[in-house]
């Protein structure tokens, strides 16, 4: 094992898959000659050339649709959206076309492509560059949704996503890019399966189910709750939002009896609402207290750091909610 950054892990995953499968190509804005706004695709153009790393004009609808066209004949495009907010610019192609193509064609065609990019708040980018779109993607059948929080998971899941025969939304987080973590060196190949959650902190009093950058906030909150209040939280990293690994969550719930779902997309109609609803439907006998969810406040994301922090469901809010739940 060695320490690496989240960005480096992504870059390695792309490089290894470009090497492994000649049907894989990257397409997006500023990803080639510039190396990507966040440098995720750095050096890949030099190594693989312009037929594998394609710089596009600012035409999200067209290059998203082109990725679909190439995918239905077996290529494996990896599309970078500079900000996942631009999902909304390419929404017809993503939700009306890519997600539905296999179904509409009665299984005759499939769309093995990856839509990747960073989402989330914390860097004061405001309303159109800070949204979290995990819940939005998860609403539509036909598209897998992955949101890893550690460099290890990011690399293993991106490689799995590229090999998957379904379209996969691979959601990175701008606050995670420069975080570090342990991962095997490049010569030791590994994959992380899509659809498997991972217990990142064992605990006995309450289950926090979360993913992406909120995982780091939840782990931080769990430490403080342990030290300051003697509350022992188990933190489950969902890693994949579609499909949801409820089995792992219910296993945790069997120990703790309390469930709090946390994410940065809106709480309203969000992944957390879904998880909590499923807990009541599928595992009500495990709940010893009402299950709850935390998400982004129902406002557009403000630029001012004072306001942005207020709107985000981060450490303080997680702690306050856990304390409320523990009092019951």
């Amino acid at each position, binding site marked *: 094992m060695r320490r690496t950054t989240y960005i480096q892990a992504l870059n390695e995953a792309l490089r290894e898959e470009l090497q492994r499968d000649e049907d894989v190509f990257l397409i997006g804005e500023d990803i080639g000659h510039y190396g990507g706004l966040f440098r995720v695709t750095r050096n890949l153009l030099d190594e693989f050339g312009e037929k594998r790393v394609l710089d596009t004009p600012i035409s999200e609808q067209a290059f998203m649709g082109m990725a679909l066209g190439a995918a239905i004949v077996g290529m494996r495009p990896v599309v970078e959206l500079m900000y996942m907010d631009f999902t909304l610019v390419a929404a017809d192609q993503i939700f009306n*076309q890519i997600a539905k193509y*296999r179904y509409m064609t009665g299984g005759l065609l499939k769309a093995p492509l990856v839509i990747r990019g960073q989402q989330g708040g914390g860097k004061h980018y405001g309303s159109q560059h800070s949204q979290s779109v995990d819940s939005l993607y998860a609403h539509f059948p036909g598209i897998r949704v992955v949101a890893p929080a550690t460099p290890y998971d990011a690399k293993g899941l991106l490689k799995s996503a590229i*090999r998957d025969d379904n379209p996969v939304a691979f959601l990175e987080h701008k606050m995670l890019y420069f975080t570090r973590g342990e991962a095997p060196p490049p010569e030791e190949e590994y994959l992380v399966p899509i659809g498997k959650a991972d217990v990142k902190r064992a605990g006995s009093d309450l289950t926090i189910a979360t993913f992406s950058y909120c995982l780091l906030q939840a782990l931080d909150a769990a430490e403080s709750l342990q030290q300051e209040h003697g509350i022992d939280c188990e933190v489950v990293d969902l890693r994949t939002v579609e499909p949801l690994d409820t089995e792992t969550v219910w296993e945790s719930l069997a120990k703790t009896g309390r469930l709090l779902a946390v994410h940065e997309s809106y709480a309203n109609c969000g992944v957390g609402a879904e998880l909590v609803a499923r807990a009541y439907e599928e595992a009500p006998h495990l709940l010893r207290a009402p299950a709850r969810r935390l998400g982004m406040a129902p406002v557009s994301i403000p630029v001012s750091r004072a306001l942005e922090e207020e709107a985000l469901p981060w450490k303080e809010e997680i702690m306050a909610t856990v304390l409320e739940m523990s009092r019951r």
Partner: protein
Amino acid sequence: MKQAERALHTQTMPDGLAQPRAEADAQTGGSLLHASITTNALPSESKSAIEVPELDIELLLDMYRKAVLIRLLEKALLAAAEEGQIGGAMHTAIGHEANAIGAAYALRSGDYITCTYRGHHHGIAWGMDPGRSIAEVMGRSDGFAKGKGGSMHFVSPQHGMMGANGIVAAQVPHAAGLALASHLRGESKVAITFFGDGAMFQGVMHETFNMAAKWKLPLIFYCENNRYSEMTPIWRTSSIEDIYLFPRAYGMASMQIDGNDVEVVHAAVSQAAERARSGYGPTFIEGITYRLAGHMAGDLETYRPPEEVEKQQAHEPLTVLRKKLLARGVEEARISEIDEEVDEAIDEAVSFAETSPWPDAAETYLDVFSESTSEES
């Protein structure tokens, strides 16, 4: 140069009552013509004549058979819709046949096509079975997509038909992606995408023009200009009526042709395919045509007088092709024989579709996700 003249389409097509220019002229004294930015300002090759060779008579007869097949299939579908056997939106291509047939015969097996929801004629022209096609429209289990796609989503990869689409212009970048795949893999496959005049003003169309031209993709944009964007003629929505002018702004070759003549379409698409395969990039073809039936089954057609449709009957693809065959010495009896043969084939296709079982309820939940990965597929 008689043959070449046929490609000059607007002169040979009488302008219908949707004719905009004359009317606009009358109202404004000509100012709406935007003479400085439309045809008058173009270089002389703008409506450049293409060589239109006479096709082999047997090939023409085969095309005629396909044209009748499409025409009768569409009529059968309209009748079935009237009987309540078909739900949802169904858009027939009566009057559009030559665009699909001329193109299909000009391309090779292995080439790709995507098209709009008005796509039955493309499916049949590219070789899809009429019985299974009708079954698909009726939502039966023998349909190509097991009844899940229906009229607006014709698909049959084995025929190169990679998908008709319910969203106007959405299929255009898909064809560009297919062309891109061919290009990246070093293949000589060409993609063609069909759309209507109504699709010209979707943003994704222009995005794709730009990328296809810049990347010199082996792609053919084929606009079936049937004069109406659904129920609205183009002169109500755009100040430029000559659609073939738009792609030139992106550095793309384009031409305007008579889309009702299979030989003209065949020649234009052959030329475009040749350019694409030789690495010269995309070509835009505007085929002037006319939709003889409503926009969709049940269209009240209040936007055009019956006389306008009547006037177009003299120029519709089957009439044009029949005249051509007779003029080249084909016996009337041979043509009627084809008519009867196809009529029977359509009866059989309809009864095949009507007796095709409904899909099993369990089918509802299949084909959402694939369980496989690249290692297995």
